[in-house]
């Protein structure tokens, strides 16, 4: 259900779980959270990517990043960062020098149109070091901690459903089904939220009823 996914996304943004990858003048970095991004001293020429975007976007196009970068004159219309296989250094150069230095392996394209969805920035050495089969994209969150907390503290068996979804996230991710893993991650997060919110909402009602019964 898209509305639940939106809630999860909004919450993940509020609590700064959102991670950004950055391509600034051909130099890639990330993942960083919003605070980390602000410390990078980016300019409006930077490109960013986060989970859910189908491709790199200019940093100026993301409203939540307003003020996280410095405006610079951008008359040349910098091309988007090339695909991960290309030479990132060459991309950032002035377009005028481009025809002299062809990108290895593929012809130069000034504006790469819609590429395959969920393509990740070039390298993620920190995740590539794990025994996970797909180093290109980190495993979506399993929400295991929240599932355990809601199971042992919230008095609602909904936490158990969340644990089941936590197992699905990792196993689907390892089977290469990244889309399925993302769905399982969001569904599990929703069960955690439901469990915790119901537990919190129920508490004042229960107290009122018990106080009324005592009097």
């Amino acid at each position, binding site marked *: 259900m898209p509305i639940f996914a939106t809630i999860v996304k909004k919450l993940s943004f*509020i*609590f*700064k779980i959102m991670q950004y990858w950055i391509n600034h003048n051909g130099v890639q970095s990330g*993942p960083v*959270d919003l*605070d980390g991004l602000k410390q990078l001293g980016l300019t409006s020429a930077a490109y960013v990517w986060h989970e859910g975007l189908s491709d790199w976007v200019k940093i100026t196009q993301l409203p939540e990043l307003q003020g996280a970068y410095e405006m610079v004159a951008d008359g040349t219309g910098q091309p988007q960062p090339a695909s991960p296989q290309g030479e990132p250094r060459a991309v950032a150069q002035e377009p005028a020098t481009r025809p002299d230095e062809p990108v290895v392996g593929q012809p130069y394209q000034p504006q790469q149109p819609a590429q395959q969805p969920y393509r990740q920035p070039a390298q993620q050495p*920190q*995740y590539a*070091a*794990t*025994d*996970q089969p797909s180093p290109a994209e980190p*495993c979506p969150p*399993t929400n*295991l*901690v929240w599932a*355990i*907390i809601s*199971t*042992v*503290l*919230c*008095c*609602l*068996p909904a*936490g*158990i459903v969340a*644990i*089941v979804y*936590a*197992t699905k*996230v*990792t*196993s689907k991710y*390892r089977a290469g089904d990244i889309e399925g893993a993302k769905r399982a991650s969001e569904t599990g997060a929703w069960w955690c939220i439901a469990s915790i919110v119901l537990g919190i909402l*129920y*508490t004042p009602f*229960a*107290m009122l009823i*018990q*106080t009324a019964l*005592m009097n």
Partner: protein
Amino acid sequence: MRRSLVIVLVVALLLVLGFIYYALDPSQSGFFPRCIFLEYTGYKCPGCGSQRAVHALLHGDVAAAFHYNTMLLVAIPWIAVCLFAESRRTSNPRLYARLNAPLLIWLFLALILLWWLLRNIFNW
């Protein structure tokens, strides 16, 4: 800045909750909510007794906490390790991957289901 605000709020909430659960005994006071699952089905859920267990833990009475909800005592170190791995995910991805391995989560799930079943059979 917003992140530090969230942390301050969470710590404040935990302190208030901790004080309430320290000062009032859930097994004596009627002000604590009873488990919905227990109320409507008559069976204990895996989390039943955790309020009394937290009260006992805050008073340093580990034996009583063990008696009220054994699973809570098992879960607390697990949660701590998972949170640690989560915060170290970029510098130590292997630990995070190990902890979130399906086999381990399935084992934990089996443990909770077993606990749920046994506590209702033996009235733990």
